[in-house]
């Protein structure tokens, strides 16, 4: 089980700033978006433009997710 942090419009659409996902042991960053979309249909349309961060760094799609990792969904940023 992985805790995933949500921000901005993803957080609003999901109605929560943190969700728990059940993922297989060999899950990778690319598995996060479909798992969220399955549980939160409203969020599905914004996931294609979001990036995944693992342990506070942007992750490649094939980066493995390990127990205890800090996982976050990063929708398009607008700082500056």
């Amino acid at each position, binding site marked *: 089980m992985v805790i995933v*942090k949500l*921000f*901005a*419009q993803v957080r*609003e659409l999901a109605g929560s700033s943190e969700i728990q996902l059940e993922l297989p042991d060999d899950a990778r960053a690319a598995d996060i978006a479909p798992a969220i979309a399955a549980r939160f249909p409203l969020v599905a349309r914004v996931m294609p*433009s979001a990036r995944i*961060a693992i342990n*506070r*760094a*942007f992750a490649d799609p094939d980066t493995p997710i390990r127990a205890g990792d800090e996982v*976050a969904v*990063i*929708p*398009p*940023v*607008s*700082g*500056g």
Partner: protein
Amino acid sequence: MEMIAWVHVAPEAIDTAAIDRHLEDPASGGRVLFEGVVRDRHHDRPVLSLEYEAYAEMAVEQLRAIASTMTARWPLRRVAIVHRVGQLLVGEIAVVIGVASPHRAEAFEACRYGIDAVKREVPIWKHEHYADGTSRWQENDC
């Protein structure tokens, strides 16, 4: 050796005097600063107020990485990157990138790189409230 890079993410008004002090360096002949300010409109829509939301722990790490890239790529003596979060009013400063360098060409290039990287790579989101009562999460196009 003094600290070269200073990064900060916080809800308080940005302390520009502290940034100036950080950039002080007798061997630097040029300082370039970029200040991003809350505008009163987005395209044609009047903006009343806005909030910046941040994934603060990652934002700080991303700012540190940007500052490291800047000092590795250009011969800079000082870098400061400060981003404010929370509610801001029109005219308030949201972000400052400051660079001190012996020569001005490098200072301009590095500062420009810095703000472009902040707008692309730092998990901070702007939520704008418009005069017509609507609001919107912005996205940087860069």
